[in-house]
């Protein structure tokens, strides 16, 4: 077999082998999601953690977890502020046995995404032991790209374990 013929045969073999070579793992579509940047805030008698558990075109959902000693902490108002948009929670429910509660916010999140708004805040007004506090959790609309790896399972829901998994470590005592 001549060198040219051998080269052509190898080229043809490489072309055929490349026609239908799939990736070793099938990725899935990745979606943008709001994330709380500083998820744990001191609310007086307890610390209050927030985690976005739903984020999509129709709005977002947040689970609040109160940690430490249970005290009579009440959420009087909850809303998100994203750019010029402010939206109150659909409903504010009582704390469940896992010391969590869910806040849903319905708004046109696809529009905020398309307008390029990538930062916002979850704003709470809480009362505990006769004191009223305003808490603000900064949020970012983050995206890891279109292709989400399959080997990464969805994160556990807040309250499923002993402590809420945090996106970033909680502030330490030395922090202002």
């Amino acid at each position: 077999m001549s060198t040219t013929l051998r080269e052509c045969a190898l080229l043809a073999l490489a072309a055929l082998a490349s026609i239908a070579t799939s990736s070793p793992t099938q990725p899935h579509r990745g979606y943008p999601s709001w994330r709380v940047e500083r998820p744990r805030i001191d609310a007086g008698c307890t610390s209050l953690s927030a985690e976005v558990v739903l984020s999509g075109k129709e709005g977002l959902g947040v689970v609040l977890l109160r940690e430490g000693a249970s005290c009579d902490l009440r959420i009087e108002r909850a809303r998100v502020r994203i750019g010029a948009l402010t939206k109150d929670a659909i409903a504010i429910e009582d704390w469940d046995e896992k010391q969590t509660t869910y806040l849903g916010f319905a708004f046109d999140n696809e529009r905020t995404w398309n307008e390029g708004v990538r930062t916002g805040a979850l704003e709470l007004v809480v009362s505990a032991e006769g004191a009223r506090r305003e808490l603000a959790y900064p949020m970012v609309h983050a995206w890891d790209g279109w292709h989400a790896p399959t080997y990464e399972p969805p994160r556990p829901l807040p309250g499923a374990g002993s402590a809420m998994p945090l996106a970033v470590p909680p502030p330490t005592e030395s922090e202002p």
Partner: protein
Amino acid sequence: MRSVTAALGCVLVLGCTHSDHPTNAPGHVDPEIRPLVPEDRIPRDPGEQAVVLAYGGTGGGGVHVASAENGAVLAGGPELSAFYGRSATSHQERGLFTTPATAFGANVGATFLTSRARGEAGMPVGLGPQIYGEAAMRIESFEGFGLGWAVDAADGRSGPQATINIGPLMVRATHVLDGGGTFLVLGLVLKGQHAFFWSR
């Protein structure tokens, strides 16, 4: 041997590539309903839309039915396509193929011909090249059809053209009016493409 290498090289150049635009990227959720299991956190796929630009060529053989004498014909040439399509499932979930399930668009191209058919007075007819345009539809990514018009660049005669695609196979019929004859060609379509995706 050089021509074989050149042909294989052309096939290798015909890649299928795509790019994703972030418009409408969030998925579907229902914020009124609290997720109960971790899987509930994953948004539902809203599907996608795409513009596909394809480039390549056709080639094949068949018959040329002319007024005086029918003959075999060899036909081939470049073809460009542009499609817009929508899919209920995003391509990231569909795996290997990055083509919208159903798409509408157009093909434009040129067909160079070698025919032994003869028209009136034994003269060759309809030797082209034929320049054509087709409105086209793709179904289930690989099947499709096109309807359009072809013009003989040499003598200006023109007529309707219809194409059916099944995978890389193509059946194309072109009827050139005013005595140009009818071409029926079975061949292959080899195309590379670039798809621009964005979410529904």
